[in-house]
């Protein structure tokens, strides 16, 4: 059976891949005269790890920004959970269950690790201003309830020891992990990771890869990630989209992509005559 059918299937390592969660249909994004993305379509299926790769300037981050609502594409539709998504603001996208991390860390530097992770729970916290002013009762119960979820994530990502440390004091690798924790705390249906391993050494990359796999395995979270490290991408992902100059040049399993002539040309260069 091919993974490109829309039938649910089980991977070799026993993870369940479901139907289509998000589908990009003929997305075109322009900045003035510059076409960042040209007519790209691909889908992300429930439970899979989907990688978007491509050389610098290929439009990968723009694609992620389209998914998370930062950019509004001029043409095309984003389908999410089986319905076309109306134009919405980034915070509304987040409320629909899409969380993300950034290429250059976007943590709240003035807050502790715990508070940062707790901000990931904000979409699940509904008590009003008045109840919070009183605190005792509803607000406190909600706080404790969400703290438990946050603590599970903290535990999962092994950052208990820095729980009360202000984020500004942490080294780069840990900040990346805290950012992942914040995204996970939202218990998203779709997790977008923009270069989760940028600037890391081999050991940190191994840790991060392990966390990504564990997250997918344990919580069944669908993950779409951008990454430059080919070894990591080919190992982690179920399917890969390859972009170059804003166009899609390949889509399929890592093996298919690896043997795709267009992809090889884009990465290794090709003689123009």
């Amino acid at each position: 059976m091919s993974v490109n059918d829309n039938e649910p299937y089980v991977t070799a390592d026993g993870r369940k891949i479901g139907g289509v969660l998000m589908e990009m249909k003929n997305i075109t994004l322009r900045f003035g005269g510059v076409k960042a993305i040209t007519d790209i379509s691909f889908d992300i299926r429930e439970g899979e790890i989907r990688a978007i790769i491509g050389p610098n300037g290929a439009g990968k981050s723009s694609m992620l920004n389209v998914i998370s609502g930062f950019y509004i594409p001029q043409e095309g539709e984003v389908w999410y959970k089986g319905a076309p998504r109306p134009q919405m603001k980034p915070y509304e996208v987040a409320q629909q269950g899409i969380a993300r991390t950034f290429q250059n860390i976007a943590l709240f530097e003035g807050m502790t690790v715990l508070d940062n992770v707790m901000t990931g729970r904000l979409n699940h916290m509904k008590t009003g201003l008045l109840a919070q002013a009183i605190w005792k009762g509803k607000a406190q119960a909600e706080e404790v309830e969400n703290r438990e979820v946050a603590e599970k994530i903290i535990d999962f990502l092994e950052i208990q020891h820095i729980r009360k440390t202000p984020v500004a004091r942490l080294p780069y690798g840990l900040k990346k992990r805290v950012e992942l924790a914040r995204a996970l705390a939202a218990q998203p249906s779709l997790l977008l990771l923009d270069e989760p391993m940028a600037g890391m050494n081999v050991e940190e990359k191994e840790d991060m890869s392990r966390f990504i796999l564990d997250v997918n395995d344990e919580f069944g979270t669908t993950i779409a990630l951008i990454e430059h490290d080919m070894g990591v991408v080919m190992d982690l992902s179920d399917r890969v989209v390859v972009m170059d100059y804003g166009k899609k040049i390949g889509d399929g399993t890592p093996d298919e992509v690896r043997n795709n002539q267009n992809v090889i040309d884009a990465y290794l260069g090709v003689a123009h005559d």
Partner: protein
Amino acid sequence: MLYREAGDFKTSYTDDGQTFPIKFDRIGYYVALIVAFAIVPFVINDYWVNAIFLPFLIYAIAAIGLNVLVGYCGQVSLGTGGFMAVGAYACYKFMTGIDIWIGGVQYALPPINIFFSVILAGFVTAIVGVLFGLPSLRIKGFYLAVATLAAQFFLVWLFNKWSWTYNYSASGQISAPERGMFGVPVTGPNTEAWATYLFCLVFVVVLALIARNLTRGSVGRKWMAIRDMDIAAEIIGVDPLKAKLSAFAVSSFYVGIAGALFFSVYLGAVEVGEAFGIQKSFLVLFMVIIGGLGSIFGSFAGAAFLVLLPVLLKNVLVSGLGWPTDLAAHLEFMIVGALIVTFLILEPHGLAQLWRVIKEKLRLWPFPH
């Protein structure tokens, strides 16, 4: 030795999230409350109340309010004086009875109890604050500060020109009639020191607790997320409109109550340009900066610093060294100014940070590491 959390294990998230996790702090807090409520009212006189306690308590409320906006939500405001004026005038209207016209018919609301007048004044100011907070959705930083400056000048102008707000009095001033709680006057000329002090203290304690509750929960995290990185805040699902406007509303509520108390309980009669001018906006902003941005304790410390320092200097220079009052008054400005500059160079994060550093040291004491 006493000041440490070692051995004081927290077994629930409720315990872990309490305001004073260290026992020593907790005891200190209760002692301060007991002293403030049970001892101070019996020993103070008019001089202490008018020179120190009332201004300290009222400015503390204003500073907490501004700290919510500037320190927690990162939205700079220079309109504090104007918002205090809204609180003062709203309180005046509520305590003297409002006449309103609906469809050409005049209705006269009866005067409202001073306690509720002050609270209602807070709500009115919150609404005005939200209106002037709307530009914050588009502009940030210095530009927002300038936009709020417009609020300051507009509001002062409004209360000068709109005679309905000062009940058409010939002088353009508003003066608080005698009003009280449980038969004890807290406004007007015949007040007792302890009554005005307790009246303000109740507001300070309750409002400080509410501020603490708001800033430790999800609303506070939304504000801080917007302050630290608004784009990231939006991506995790914070609606910037709601977060910023709620900060403006809460902040203005506090500032409005401070203005209402400042007028009704402390001064008794005010002229808007004089009492709530731009210098008041800066004074409260200095309190917040010197006390420490994003800290409730800092708001108290900043208010205490800027209220006590001039009084202290006056006492030292005039009573202690025997200098002429006019010379002392001018020197006082210079010394306070110099102290603020020096202080901010030495500790840019304010008194609250200084206190945090001391606590870190205390935790280890008597060992160096």
